[in-house]
């Protein structure tokens, strides 16, 4: 029998990522010294990753209710109502730290974890989205990480048979040491069969299903709750190993268990594994748990209670069922070639008790581990401070030289890392399995059909870290607005979102300020757009010795396309001779743009303004225009501005098996050429309609107080933009072949993947 008595030194506390005052609280809670097992359990549960100790007070600012919300934050995933017999479960989660150290496994297990969060709710996953951030594309390290992450996602999602349908990939030097890997899963659940992570019913059995417990990932949660440095860069043992085949079996077995109504509650063993799943399930039910370590199926011999409780081995789940149903559960698991083992039971006393070889090795009040309202819970009352860099973070537009040759700018931007085509990334993902992907990757949002129901889902992820860095509140608003806009470009009404908040070290008041302001901006936009937050995840400590990342909240938005016609739109021009209409107005804004960064080498604001009422007007115009079959193609204007959006509308056709179609456009304006073509003014879109439908579109636009300007028509194999100034000597022209633009666009990022 192992002796878990230890002397608590600063060294031991540091190893467990616990602060001295937190340790003092442990003494008060237990009324005695903790042993090593208990210390490990506190360390995991009080890690930022599990406790949200810095973020919780701020997260309360998010609106989380609404007429569509069936399940808000706090469960394995949130769920929204479709109005039919089904709900839509979704959530986004980060796997940043593991991916920075071991990109393939880190990304693969990230997908695995978020899939489990969805199917534990009883939902069958129908789509995966990935939001990725890497450092400078020219560095060998970035290329290594990029390839590793992409093949890891492909390895996992493809095997389980869930289509990876959308996402974004962004390159900025601030992510050199801390890449971001955020994975989102969307699932469909029968509303009558929604399951939650609860350990209800004293005396009920706690069953363990799935893969064996090994020594991998021990302390993963606390690893993810510290900055990456040379020392913990080596902590590859903190990264788990993925087995997607096991996941597929677990998925089918779990859905069968839920379908046959054999279980009371179920939860994934994610971060902090057995410890967090069992204590959180007990907390939600107001019960306690007893765990018998000796019964836990182990992969390695000689694993002790400490290791078993903290292992983050993948593809494991914990479920609670009545004694009566134990055998039935075992039978279904056996059918799928898996084991179900009873490893504990639900007890009345709200305690977390662990036995090893008949001896009690941990005895902790449940609330101390999970309840942020508990007296000794290490909730932080961090105060933010406006970062000093913001004092000198804006340009005066008159100081920026206007480009002589807009064609050169366009060519440079269309081949730049953040704008060029990413098809070699998603070509590695099976994005068609399940035969529901009506809009393949490469449009503003993916459209997933739901068979046998008059509804489809549009989904997108978005989050411009540079905007948030330069103006956290506005950047937060834009993240939500743009994700909603992306969904509306398919003709879908945005319904709700999940978010992954990637930030630096929250103990740094300046980082905390970024966090607080960004959340406030997102929350404000969420309220105005009526798209509540239903789930999410916070990832702090994305920081290396060199620097912190841009504050990067990623929004995963889901919208509905309803009606038996299921009308929807894609971004590319559908036919020759259609009228191109610009929706929205263009202001003289070049701050924070790709243009300013790529052409002038400046990462400076001001971030473009956003008027959420205008934003709603734009989205409503597109949604109604598409639903009524008036709008044939719709593409929002974002990175790279008008000229890039127009180019993409011409050349992205080939991604969907169609022929690229050129455009002839005339612009009349008195604002600067660069702002007109490449500025990132918000709430704009490029749509096409047939000639005789222009008036119908204008009527819809007027109703929504949106300016709709006929700017040209589709056709030919060139992109021609004539810019007409009152003074002719300033007039400029872009006249390029689609072939040249397409080649530049396809050979930017693609050649590195």
């Amino acid at each position: 029998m192992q002796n878990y008595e230890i002397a608590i030194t600063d060294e031991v506390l540091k190893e467990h990522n616990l602060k001295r005052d937190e340790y003092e609280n442990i003494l008060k809670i237990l009324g005695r010294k903790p042993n090593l097992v208990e210390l490990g359990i506190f360390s995991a549960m009080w890690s930022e990753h599990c406790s949200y100790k810095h973020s919780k007070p701020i997260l309360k600012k998010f609106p989380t209710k609404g007429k569509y919300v069936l399940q808000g934050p706090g469960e394995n995933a949130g769920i929204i109502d479709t109005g039919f017999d089904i709900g839509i479960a979704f959530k986004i989660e980060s796997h940043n730290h593991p991916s920075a150290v071991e990109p393939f496994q880190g990304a693969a297990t990230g997908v695995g974890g978020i899939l489990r969060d969805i199917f534990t709710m009883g939902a069958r996953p129908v789509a995966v989205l990935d939001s990725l951030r890497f450092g400078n594309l020219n560095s060998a390290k970035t290329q290594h990480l990029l390839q590793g992450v992409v093949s890891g996602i492909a390895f996992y999602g493809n095997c389980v048979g869930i289509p990876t349908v959308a996402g974004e990939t962004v390159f900025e030097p601030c992510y050199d040491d801390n890449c971001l890997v955020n994975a989102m899963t969307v699932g469909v659940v029968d509303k009558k069969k929604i399951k939650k992570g609860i350990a209800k019913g004293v005396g009920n059995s706690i069953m363990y299903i799935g893969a064996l417990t090994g020594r991998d990932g021990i302390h993963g949660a606390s690893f993810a709750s510290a900055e990456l440095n040379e020392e913990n860069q080596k902590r590859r043992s903190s990264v788990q190993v993925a087995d997607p085949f096991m996941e597929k079996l677990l998925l089918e077995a779990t859905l069968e268990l839920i379908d046959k109504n054999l279980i009371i509650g179920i939860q994934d063993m994610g971060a902090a594994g057995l410890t967090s799943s069992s204590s959180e399930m007990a907390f939600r039910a107001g019960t306690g748990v007893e765990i018998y370590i000796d019964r836990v199926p182990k992969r390695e011999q000689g694993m002790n209670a400490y290791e078993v409780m903290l292992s983050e081995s993948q593809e494991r789940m914990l479920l609670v069922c009545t004694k009566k149903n134990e055998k039935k559960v075992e039978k279904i698991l056996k059918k799928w070639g898996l084991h179900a083992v009873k490893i504990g039971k639900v007890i009345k006393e709200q305690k977390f008790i662990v036995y090893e070889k008949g001896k009690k090795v941990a005895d902790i009040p449940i609330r101390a581990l999970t309840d942020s309202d508990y007296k000794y819970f290490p909730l932080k009352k961090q105060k933010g401070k406006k970062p000093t860099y913001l004092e000198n973070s804006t340009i005066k537009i008159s100081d920026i030289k206007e480009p002589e040759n807009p064609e050169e700018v366009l060519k440079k931007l269309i081949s730049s890392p953040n704008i060029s085509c990413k098809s070699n990334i998603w070509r590695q993902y099976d994005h068609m399995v399940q035969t529901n992907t009506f809009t393949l990757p490469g449009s503003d949002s993916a459209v997933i059909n739901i068979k046998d129901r008059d509804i489809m889902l549009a989904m997108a992820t978005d989050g411009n870290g540079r905007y948030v860095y330069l103006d956290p509140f506005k950047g937060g608003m834009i993240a939500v607005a743009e994700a909603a806009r992306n969904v509306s470009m398919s003709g879908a009404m945005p319904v709700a979102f999940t978010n992954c908040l990637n930030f630096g070290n929250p103990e740094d008041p300046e980082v905390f300020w970024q966090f607080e302001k960004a959340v406030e901006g997102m929350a404000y936009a969420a309220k105005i757009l009526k798209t509540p937050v239903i789930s999410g995840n916070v990832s702090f400590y994305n920081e290396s010795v060199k620097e912190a990342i841009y504050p990067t909240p990623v929004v995963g938005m889901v919208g509905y396309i309803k009606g038996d016609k299921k009308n929807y739109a894609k971004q590319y021009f559908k036919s020759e001779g259609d009228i191109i209409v610009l929706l929205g107005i263009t202001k003289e804004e070049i701050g924070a743009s790709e243009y300013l960064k790529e052409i002038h080498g400046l990462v400076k604001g001001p971030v473009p303004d956003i008027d959420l009422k205008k934003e709603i007007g734009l989205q409503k115009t597109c949604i109604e225009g598409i639903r009524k079959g008036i709008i044939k193609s719709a593409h929002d204007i974002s990175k790279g501005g008008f000229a890039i959006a127009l180019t993409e509308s011409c050349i992205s056709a080939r991604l969907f098996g169609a022929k690229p179609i050129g455009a002839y456009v005339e612009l009349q304006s008195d604002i600067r050429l660069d702002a007109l073509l490449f500025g990132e003014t918000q709430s704009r879109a490029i749509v096409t309609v047939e000639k005789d439908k222009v008036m119908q579109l204008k009527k819809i636009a007027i109703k929504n107080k949106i300016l709709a300007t006929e700017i040209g028509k589709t056709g030919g194999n060139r992109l021609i933009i004539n810019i007409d100034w009152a003074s002719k000597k300033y007039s400029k022209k872009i006249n390029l072949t689609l072939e040249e633009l397409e080649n530049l666009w396809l050979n930017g990022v693609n050649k590195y993947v």
Partner: protein
Amino acid sequence: MNKKIKFGVIVFPGSNCDADCLWAIKDVLHQDAEFIWHESKNIENYDVIVLPGGFSYGDYLRSGAIARFAKVMEKINDFVNKKNKFVIGICNGFQILLEAGILPGAMLHNKNLKFICEYVNLVVENNDTPFTNKCEKGQVLKIPIAHGEGNYYCDDKTLNKLIKNDEIAFRYSTLKGEITEEANVNGSVYNIAGILNRKKNVLGMMPHPERAMIEELGSTDGKYIWESLINFIKKS
């Protein structure tokens, strides 16, 4: 003559295109179809057995290498030897047929060593088969692939036999039906995308016809293959 044809879609642990095949056959083509669990030994009542795509047994060892030992596979040889019985193996199903020796050759990793999911063009090499009789010879079909190991390999002797006996069903081609190196997306010998057995009642193909069934998914060319089969069985 309106008798529905009975399809059985085998479900191995790790199959993930099983539901798509069932949907294509039942909902789009309105035929009878049901799943067959990999431990079942009763397959003689079906007209057609479908070995669907996916990662049976996690593709451990080699794609299809473990699935060929599944109980249900013990009966496949008998099934194939009977009259008016047909087998179609798609993607992982094709790999299983190769591992089981029902079709000749083997699969290597794609030439770029990466998983590839995209629409490709296939030229119909032989339209005088139960699976292709609704196509023209030389017709180009647009059907997606999704695989990491679809680089078909066989030795010259086998290839010559395949050619001589008209056992090549589809080859990767350009949009116009030209056989080029560039169109050979995964590096297969002779641009081979699908082959038949000597008796022409077994088809193995890497592309997924069940994914090209309705316009919204990008193509309906997959229907040619299923409808050929239905046509053939109804006539016989």
